[in-house]
């Protein structure tokens, strides 16, 4: 056969083998980097999947803190924060705020009194084009020390093994502090009475380049009226959303933002460790919530309150959580924005129903 060949005869086999090896190795490196060869790697997809209840995730909704309601208002800065951070948000002035009150559950229809942890997503924007996004919760510390431990907590709480939670608590002694808080901290009947904390530490840089590691809290100006879980249950499954809408319709609701500055040697990488109460605290401004809107068509719905969206003058610290949260929130956002048909827009306005 003298069929014309693309290949010269001699040495071609070795060359072709070399080319094949190059391609296979390059493909393998790519697969390794993508995690396809590492089933144990804790990926954003695995982390987010671990939130799903046994019946599956609520499509179209955030994969955690799924039940929520939008708000808008402003942040009134008093200039005190300028000594800590050069971000414009701390300079005297009023800046637009957009946020979301929420419950720490993967079930958007969970009854309010069944959810222990409440949260606030918040974005403050400034005229220089910067945005500061926060995702806060109503306890001053996080239940576990590391993102990996949080994943184990999610696996344990979803496990059928009756000893799973006991084993988890034994391996993660810091979790006992959360247990004590969940048992003893009073409930309230209003988002307006909650204190929301950054949990994670961040690094503030001021105009002369000096840096401080800080955490912050939003302290409610409304009077806190403690109630019991069963009293809250009697108020109805969606009391919190109804109550905050009525309360804000009557008068804007306010929170004081207090920035707590770490002393050298304070634990900045572990959000399960609260700092001593005597740490310096700087009151930097007031959040004023002026309007409540249902989430379905509200301005917070398609916003990812990624806590690593930070203005110049604020950056992440050695706390590993913000990166993990950013990765997981992006995954959740990508999933839910692809599921709009499962949580369509415009129904609230069409039916006038309360969400």
């Amino acid at each position, binding site marked *: 056969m003298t069929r014309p060949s693309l290949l*010269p005869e001699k040495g071609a086999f070795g*060359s072709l083998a070399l080319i094949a090896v*190059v*391609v296979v190795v390059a493909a393998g490196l790519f697969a390794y*980097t993508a995690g396809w060869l590492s089933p144990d790697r*804790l990926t954003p997809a695995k982390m987010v999947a671990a939130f799903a209840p046994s019946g599956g995730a609520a499509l179209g909704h955030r994969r955690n803190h799924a039940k929520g309601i939008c708000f808008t208002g402003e942040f009134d800065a008093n200039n005190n924060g300028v000594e800590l951070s050069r971000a414009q948000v701390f300079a005297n002035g009023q800046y637009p705020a957009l946020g979301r009150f929420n419950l720490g559950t993967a079930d958007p229809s969970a009854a309010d009194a069944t959810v222990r942890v409440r949260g606030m997503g918040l974005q403050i924007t400034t005229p220089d084009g910067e945005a500061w996004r926060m995702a806060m919760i109503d306890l001053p510390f996080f239940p576990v020390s590391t993102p990996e431990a949080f994943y184990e907590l999610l696996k344990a709480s979803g496990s059928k093994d009756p000893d799973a939670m006991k084993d988890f608590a034994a391996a993660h002694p810091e979790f006992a502090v959360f247990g004590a808080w969940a048992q003893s901290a009073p409930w309230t009947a209003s988002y307006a009475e909650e204190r929301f904390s950054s949990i994670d530490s961040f690094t503030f840089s001021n105009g002369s380049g000096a840096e401080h590691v800080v955490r912050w809290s939003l302290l409610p100006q409304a009077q806190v009226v403690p109630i019991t879980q069963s009293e809250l249950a009697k108020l109805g499954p969606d009391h919190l959303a109804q109550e905050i809408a009525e309360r804000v319709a009557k008068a804007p609701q306010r929170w004081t933002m207090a920035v707590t500055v770490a002393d050298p040697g304070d634990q900045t990488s572990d959000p399960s460790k609260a700092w001593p109460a005597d740490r310096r605290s700087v009151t930097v401004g007031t959040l004023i919530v002026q309007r409540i809107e249902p989430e379905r068509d509200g301005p917070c719905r*398609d916003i990812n309150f990624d806590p690593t969206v930070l203005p110049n003058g604020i950056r992440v610290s050695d706390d590993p959580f913000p990166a993990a949260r950013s990765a997981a929130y992006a995954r959740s956002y990508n999933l839910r924005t692809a599921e709009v048909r499962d949580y369509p827009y415009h129904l609230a306005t069409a039916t006038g129903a309360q969400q």
Partner: protein
Amino acid sequence: MNGARFTAVQRLLHWVMAICILSMLFIGVGFASTITPKYLPLVATHKTLGIAILVLALIRLGVRIRSGTPPLPADLPEPMRLAAHLSHYALYALMIAMPLLGWGMLSAADYPVVLFGGIRLPQILPLNATLHTLLWDAHFYLAFAFYALILLHIAAALFHALVRRDGVFESMAPTPSHAKVAAAE
């Protein structure tokens, strides 16, 4: 082949962009599979490098239109000639489209696009979940197509260099022109 080569500027652009684009694809699949603290610098690098690649790709397109390309070997079989032309159109399209898809996808999610040095890019699309999904899917799937095409490109380049020895590889090789590697055959 007559030993004609791409110009020095074209070769420089090719190899600089080769490093950038390969890094970019590895960084992309890398950050998407981790929740460790390196996630954030990887994402920031991905955005910065993406815009750098967009700028370089547009410059390169202009240079290519001006300087042209050396002719392919006259004895190159027609299917390989066609594959060479089509794959280069696809590579140029991806070099320009991928950064725009990424930028558009971030814009449609209302994420600020901040590069190294605090450079803030404008939002090029309005917030829209459906648009975000469309662009995200395109960015995601085309990334794998891009890498597959690059592997094909590398295999073809090595085929020219090692098997056909027709000067095509040497026309883009990262060696100075006076080396005249191609002339040896």
